[in-house]
């Protein structure tokens, strides 16, 4: 399987995700944001970081860069796309995923391991997990507060597009286990066709026990399946 990681000025998890992809034997190419063409791949990754400084709105300026036309083409052809953290923000700004990521409710950057509930394991990104499995993956963001109008939220629920929700030790999804104020505790969603996932947690940060956990591996293992 081949993967392209898009590098924007200000991306800073690009190397991290490349290491993780390669650990799971995905052949990985780094693609510069100004490129007008993108080599063929099965997967495109929009990495975390602060593309263009995340000034104005997170992910907004990245969503306008040259390479995004190629990424959209890839999406329309049914290719897989993962956007983690800033990548998720870029996907919503581009319109490939609905909603928007607002500033965390407490207005502070949060970096920590959180519990997540796998709400939907029938996506190409989560098939290695069990439904309702509780996993631990770190988050690290200032703007991860998922917001969408009621109609969109209904649609997300009806189409089973909500993939990951923040929960507590005991798998309970509630206000206390919501780190950033996201609607419905949403941590990750897919598009209708389920070939695009956006998630605030960083799976690439937990694929080795020395780094605090290995629950992120499931995402990559699902993909190579």
């Amino acid at each position, binding site marked *: 399987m081949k993967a392209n990681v898009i590098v924007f000025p200000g991306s800073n998890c690009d190397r991290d995700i490349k290491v993780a992809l390669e650990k799971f034997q995905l052949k990985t190419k780094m693609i510069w944001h100004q490129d007008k063409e993108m080599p063929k791949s099965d997967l495109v990754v929009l990495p975390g970081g602060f593309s263009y400084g995340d000034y104005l709105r997170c992910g907004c300026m990245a969503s306008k860069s040259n390479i995004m036309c190629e990424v959209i083409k890839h999406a329309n052809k049914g290719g897989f796309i993962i956007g983690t953290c800033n990548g998720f923000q870029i996907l919503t700004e581009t319109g490939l995923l609905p909603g928007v990521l*607002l500033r965390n409710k407490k207005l502070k950057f949060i970096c920590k391991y959180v519990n997540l509930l796998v709400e939907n394991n029938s996506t190409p990104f989560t098939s290695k997990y069990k439904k309702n499995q509780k996993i631990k993956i770190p988050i690290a963001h200032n703007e991860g507060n998922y917001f969408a109008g009621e109609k969109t939220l209904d649609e997300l629920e009806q189409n089973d597009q909500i993939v990951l929700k923040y929960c507590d030790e005991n798998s309970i999804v509630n206000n206390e286990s919501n780190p950033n104020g996201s609607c419905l505790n949403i941590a990750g969603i897919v598009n209708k066709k389920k070939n695009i996932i956006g998630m605030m947690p960083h799976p690439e940060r937990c694929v080795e026990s020395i780094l605090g956990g290995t629950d992120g591996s499931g995402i990559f293992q699902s993909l190579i399946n």
Partner: protein
Amino acid sequence: MKFEVFVTLKNGVLDPQGKAVENALGNIGLSSIKNVRQGKYFTIEVDEHNEEKAKTLVKSSCEKLLANETIENFKFNKIQ
């Protein structure tokens, strides 16, 4: 030509920054200040002498970049 652009959150969109400002004002004894909403304010210059054309450019920057219409409204004025 110089413009000012206002980008504000739509009604109904939660504004944690505004809330935090409001609380903080309360904490320093300014509790009569209510309903704080925070938005963005830009000043920009447009290299264009025709006012209509300039306005079209400003509008298009708002739509394409400055505002995210899922959650924000914008308006602008010519100031010079």
